[in-house]
């Protein structure tokens, strides 16, 4: 029972980590809280669904395609919607991204219909039994592919020149601009990576649950819990707290009731905001007047 719940928690957590990573990166680099991030996840799930179920493409190829398509969509979204918002006051950017989220959610309802769809892959039904823990193959893929993506992203940010430019931009947007970094380009790349990760999460998790437009709302609220727990803008924090939240949720669901798991998540959110708003791993920043 305990191990089964731990395994479920890790798989759920890997998804939370993927979605929250993009959200926290976009905040760290662009200073924008993207309330439309849940919609990017949902669009990713629908892209994966369309590729595998309608065009009968192999699941792994579809995953790669969906990641690339979502990266392109991310760039387009940045160009059309996010760029005009970046210069506005903070409250206006938040309301603006909420507008984008309403737009995408209802666009998806229009295109795909409001009803949940089953997203079947050959790996959903095949189970593996290891030491009393039953897992479907799909869940194993979800976990390992997420880990691979997270490691790849970490290497990209640490090792490449572009990654270095992204880190510089997140430290100080204007100074980076003065040092000759094309921050507009960095903004596009950041959004592309964020959407690609959300799209990957959507395509990976879609077959385990159902795919429907309103899945974006739950994904967005959970991603916010993860991002706040880890500290807004903190990449390592988002990865760790993604897994932590996944494990806590599945343990609560296993030992108490699945009704409580969401309430526990949001209570954690409120408590963290009350006592340590900079996140579990955040350094305390004394605000200068």
């Amino acid at each position, binding site marked *: 029972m305990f191990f089964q719940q731990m395994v479920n928690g890790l798989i759920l957590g890997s998804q939370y980590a993927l979605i929250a990573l993009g959200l926290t990166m976009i905040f760290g680099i662009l200073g924008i809280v993207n309330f439309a991030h849940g919609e990017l996840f949902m669009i990713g799930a629908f892209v994966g669904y369309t590729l595998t179920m309608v065009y009968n493409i192999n699941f792994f190829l579809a995953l790669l395609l969906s990641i690339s398509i979502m990266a392109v969509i991310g760039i387009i979204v940045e160009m059309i919607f996010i760029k005009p918002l970046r210069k*506005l006051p903070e409250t206006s950017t938040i309301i603006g991204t*909420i507008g984008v989220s309403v737009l995408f959610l209802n666009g998806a*309802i229009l295109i795909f219909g409001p009803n949940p769809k089953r997203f079947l892959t050959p790996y959903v039904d095949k189970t593996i039994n290891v030491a009393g823990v039953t897992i479907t193959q799909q869940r194993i893929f979800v976990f390992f592919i997420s880990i691979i993506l997270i490691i790849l992203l970490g290497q990209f940010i640490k090792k490449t020149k572009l990654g270095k430019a992204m880190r510089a931009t997140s430290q100080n947007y204007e100074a980076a601009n003065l040092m000759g970094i094309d921050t507009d380009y960095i903004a596009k790349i950041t959004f592309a990576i964020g959407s690609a990760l959300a799209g990957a999460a959507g395509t990976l998790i879609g077959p385990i649950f159902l795919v429907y437009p309103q899945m974006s709302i739950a994904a967005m609220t959970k991603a916010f819990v993860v991002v706040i727990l880890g500290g807004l803008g903190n990449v390592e924090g988002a990865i760790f707290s993604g897994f932590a939240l996944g494990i806590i949720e599945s343990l609560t669901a296993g030992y108490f009731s699945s009704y409580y798991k969401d309430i526990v998540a949001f209570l954690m959110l409120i408590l963290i905001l009350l006592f340590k708003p900079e996140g579990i791993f955040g350094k305390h920043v004394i605000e200068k007047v």
Partner: protein
Amino acid sequence: MTKLFKKNIYCAQVFLIIMLFFIPFFNFKQYYMHIFIMICIYILLTQGLNLIAGFTGQLSLGHAAFYGIGAYTSALLSIRLGVPVWLSIPMAAIFTGAFGIVLGFPCLRLKGPYLVIATLGFGEIMRLIFLNWVKITRGPMGITGIMSPEPINLGFIKFSFDTKETYFLLVLLIVILTVYFLSKLINSKTGRAMISIREDQIASELMGVNITYYKLFAFVLGAFLAGLAGALYAHYIRYISPDSFVISESVNILVMSVVGGMGTIIGPIIGSIFIELLLEYMRILQEYRLIVYGLILFSTIIYLPGGLAGLTGSAFKKISLLLDRNHKIKYTE
């Protein structure tokens, strides 16, 4: 001339308000009466949010939770405990006002995105409680059989509140009293203190404004209005379920305030009327209408930061300036 102009405006306002009370006698279709009542309920909601977000600058996405608390409290009080509806509505509003402290207190130290996410979390917690506390709220089945307010017999005339016409008169009266009270409040010391917090929190603290008090006051009064709106909604529709109090409802209230113009008294009124009518008129567009709705919010933020009220406000200023100039020219002649 400007004085006369202002006086005329004042007379026009009074005339307009009196005209509003005659709406039920025009024999509108029941469908239109329903829209009018919903506009009034949304005006209460948007005024509450406007007080928190527009005047005090604390952007909140948990307003639907207050709306739900008011609706559930009033419905449960009247059904389970047999409290008369005339008593359960104010009781629900006061109880919701107390919940304003529950949300307002943790939010005192937060700002920007942290505040928005915290209020979002509060909204989700309340929705989950409505959904899962089946013993009290009947969960997803919702509460049915909520009664309308008891009839009032004035001897010569009898008001029974089970028709849309009389219910409209009730909500209209409440809306007018609320708007009058709020416009007085905003021009008082309290209102100026709230606006100063929005403009610059540190500066206003240095000027001696008690930030904790005024922020909590905004949350309590905003929650009170939302609770009142919720109670009025519950006794009008007579059926409530957690579906009515979800995040998208909070977003809806926010859209109305923003499109109308945050930080003005007239803005939320214009916004509620505009969005509610727009959504009804656009039924021809069917599924496209909510896309248009998202676009409207986005373009308001980019192109019309002051909302529709900002637009009419500037037009109004231009007209009065024009009249003033004519007057001066005449005077010098």
